[in-house]
């Protein structure tokens, strides 16, 4: 057994142990911390599967932003949970659920061994057409050229989810500011970090979008970093979430999907199909889409995290 495979086995065992902890821990807070750790470990698994783009997305969104979201929710639910208490399922129910879930796992594990050999792959055709897209990263080429329709629909999912979250606001707070206002002492280390990090974070986020066409990275990963920087300044009380009724905010949110859709529709005119890019202009058009989408993604992620409005617009 080589060192490499020993490391892989150790990683797999660690991932499963942390996942089991996340499910079995009695305390919600411990489970959520376990989930964040799990997200970071899982991004290492993605690296060992040579999927750097997914590793970045998993670390940023799967572990990072989802973790912050769940920690915030856990803190709010904690006090209510203690007063109500919960009924736990009986031992027979737990054993039978465990047995059935183990059966499903065994079935899935079996299919892993029965996967066709040689594995079907679209990698050669992706490589053959890569030059035509002007990009060097095949995953970005799939996201923005070969399967741009998926990405267009996905970019519509973020505003839709945000409309869903906002519609859960109480009537009297409609159009107001999401979440609670954070206040921190001027001498707090969080305030210091919130003043120090954003320029570097913004630079890193924009760089990640820029290199995404040729290297691992892209608008989702870069957008998440930008969102994280905004959230950091909000948590330190330096900035506040704008009221959701602000027109500029809504324009930022829909600018990306609108530009993407407009370019898709323009495809009917020049090459003749929806979302087809005119020959020779693929790279600039893709960069325009990326540039328009990044602020929309960053704003949508940060606002999804902030939740429905809970304060009056002027409060």
């Amino acid at each position: 057994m080589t060192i490499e495979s020993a490391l892989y086995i150790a990683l797999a065992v660690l991932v499963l142990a942390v996942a089991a902890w996340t499910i079995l821990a009695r305390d919600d807070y411990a489970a959520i911390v376990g989930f964040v750790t799990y997200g970071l470990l899982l991004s290492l698994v993605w690296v060992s599967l040579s999927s750097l783009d997914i590793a970045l997305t998993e670390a940023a969104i799967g572990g990072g932003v989802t973790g912050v979201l769940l920690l915030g929710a856990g803190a709010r639910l904690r006090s209510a949970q203690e007063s109500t208490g919960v009924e736990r399922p009986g031992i027979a129910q737990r054993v039978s659920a465990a047995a059935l879930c183990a059966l499903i796992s065994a079935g899935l594990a079996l299919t892993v061994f029965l996967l066709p050999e040689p594995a079907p792959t679209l990698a050669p055709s992706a490589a053959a057409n890569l030059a035509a897209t002007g990009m060097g990263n095949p995953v970005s080429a799939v996201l923005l050229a070969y399967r741009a329709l998926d990405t267009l629909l996905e970019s519509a999912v973020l505003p839709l989810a945000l409309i869903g979250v906002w519609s859960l606001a109480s009537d009297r707070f409609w159009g107001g500011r999401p979440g609670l206002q954070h206040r921190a002492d001027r001498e707090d280390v969080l305030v210091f970090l919130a003043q120090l990090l954003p320029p570097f974070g913004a630079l890193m986020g924009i760089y990640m979008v820029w290199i995404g066409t040729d290297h691992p990275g892209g608008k989702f990963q870069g957008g998440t970093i930008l969102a994280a920087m905004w959230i950091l300044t909000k948590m330190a009380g330096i900035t506040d979430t704008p009221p959701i009724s602000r027109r500029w905010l809504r324009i930022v949110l829909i600018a990306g999907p609108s530009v993407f859709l407009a370019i898709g529709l323009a495809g009917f005119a020049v090459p003749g199909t929806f979302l087809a890019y005119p020959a020779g202009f693929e790279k600039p058009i893709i960069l325009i889409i990326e540039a328009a989408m990044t602020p929309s993604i960053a704003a949508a992620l940060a606002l999804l995290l902030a939740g429905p409005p809970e304060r009056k617009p002027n409060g």
Partner: protein
Amino acid sequence: MNAATLFGVCSAALVGLGLYGLVIHPRPLRKILAFNLLGSGVFLLFGVVARRGAAAGMGGDPVPQALVITGIVVAFSATALAVALLLRLLHETGRTTLNADASKNPSNNRPRESANS
């Protein structure tokens, strides 16, 4: 056993663990957590399929890889909506479980709303 098969088995176990948590936990927050774990297991299985399709100098088939990236973002959107629904449930009823007759009687419904108006 190579890395793809190893993590394939790992992903199968993650799906089972997530499903168990989804079935067994009475509290919605833990169900959301378990559902995310279940989802990441499915993504990982798909990632293993991508890895097995490594060809043409690429570390894996880029098509499933791109779909997993899309999936992670959509999963986050759904989680944010689920958390917002849960907090709204708490705000409206003061309950943190889905079981309507667990701890409160019907006359206790909407306590916060009546206090606010």
